[in-house]
């Protein structure tokens, strides 16, 4: 039976560095294995679409420009991503993986969260489809 059994704690705390931080002004390092932004490598992708199919939050869209030449473009909705890494598990060619940078997701518009991956000319093609010769889009990846 005691009164004020946390006296030691408060005296200690008083002289210790605060446990809280001034977050936006002072940032802490993220751990090595943090799950951050998804990165996709167009060179190794086989276009199987398993990552798109398994994504629980439909954050990935894959545009197939030319299946034979393996020309694909990936649209990654960063704001929808839940960083579960299922795409990384599902991918057989190891062309999609999570990095440990970019984990502060705050913006006043959605545009910065629409990340396109792929060869530059392919991305251009997806963004501005030519009137004729529209790229052949695979069924699970319609444009918005």
């Amino acid at each position, binding site marked *: 039976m005691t009164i004020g059994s946390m006296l030691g*704690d408060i005296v200690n705390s008083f002289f210790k560095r605060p446990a809280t931080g001034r977050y936006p002004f002072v940032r802490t390092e993220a751990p090595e294995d*943090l799950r951050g932004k998804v990165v996709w490598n167009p060179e190794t992708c086989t276009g199987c679409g398993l990552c798109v199919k398994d994504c629980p939050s*439909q954050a990935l869209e894959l545009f197939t420009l030319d299946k034979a030449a393996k020309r694909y473009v990936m649209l990654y909705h960063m704001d929808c991503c839940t*960083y579960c890494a299922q795409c990384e598990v599902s991918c057989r060619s190891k062309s999609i993986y999570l990095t440990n940078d970019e984990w502060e997701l705050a913006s006043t518009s959605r545009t910065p969260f629409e990340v396109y991956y792929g060869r530059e000319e392919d991305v251009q093609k997806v963004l501005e489809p030519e009137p004729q010769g529209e790229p052949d889009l695979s069924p699970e990846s319609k444009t918005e």
Partner: protein
Amino acid sequence: MGAEKKPEKFVVSIGPQHPALKEPGHFEFAVEGEIVTSATARLGFVHRGMEKGTESRTWVQNLYLMERVCGICSAVHAMAYAQGVEKLAKVEVPPRARAIRQLIAELERIHSHLLWLGVAAHEGGFDTLFMLSWRDRETVMDLLEAITGNRVNYSANVLGGVKIDIDEVKSAAILKGMDFLEERTRHYMKVVTEDETFLGRTRKIGTMTLEQALRLGSVGPTGRASGVPYDVRVDAPYAAYQDFPVNIVTDTAGDLEARFVVRIKELYESYRVIRELVDHMPAGELTTRIPRRIQEGEVVSRVEAPRGELFYFLKSNGTDMPERIKVRTPSLCNWGSILATAVGHRLADMPMILAGIDPCFSCNDRMILVKRGNDQTVWTWEDLRRYGIEYYK
């Protein structure tokens, strides 16, 4: 109280925007002076229709949906679901994956119990204990972040195993964290069992006898504090609990103090079993292959969540989407105990009694699908505003 017109019943309604619990739930306490004479509850404010939602998602996608039933005990939901699917598909998970699953589940239990300790202290107006226990909880949060990559919704499980591995560096970090937490927890045990002012708020408050607890179907630490000897980890070992067993912790007092004591003693058990797991982690594969289409069948999957027995019923119709997934969360079992023990106590004790079962509203309530993707109906700010105006007309 002249403003109250009806003299017979003075009802204090708390919620849905609850001052104490940061989740929506509605309670009505009829009071005479400060003494509560009856209590009712209304839930469902965060019903998200998850059970319906599972029927239109694949088995793989559902893993992450189920993980989001609850933000605090996410790993056990994913684990219960994954184990159920693996049973349906008749797939054996490698021992190392099972051990890692148990490790994550136990780390999560530590985080959940420490969180509860802080919340309960806050309800009792003991903000220093709240702040300091949450400060120490950061240790386990950081560990989980370092191991899995996420601070909440760890997504460590995958159908057929786990995604993450434990290496030397992480093992050392876990052991160091456990030593620190054990020392702190022993101190908190002293605080909650010896501090006179805090005991005044917990001892002999919200007492539930063994008979009551059995009749009301209490599970988890709430039930065990009244002497109900249920613990799925012991009764029906899953993951690696067969090889790394835990001891069941019970108390007989059944009051709030006993709930503190049981949870803190469970923390000791968790520290012990985590050390064993890290020291004797079996070697081997992390995953095993699992088909995308799950054969027809029905299974029951039970795990011990930090709050008590978590019950999953899964039914497959042979396709890549489930026929029915039923989730019965532990908080649902424990509501009865609040409403029954509230009567006769003071209004001031209600937050403590409510918090005593460690309620989790999102666990209870599982609707409302926010559609997104190809057929998305994204609500703009203007839509939301118009909806708000319409609604309150």
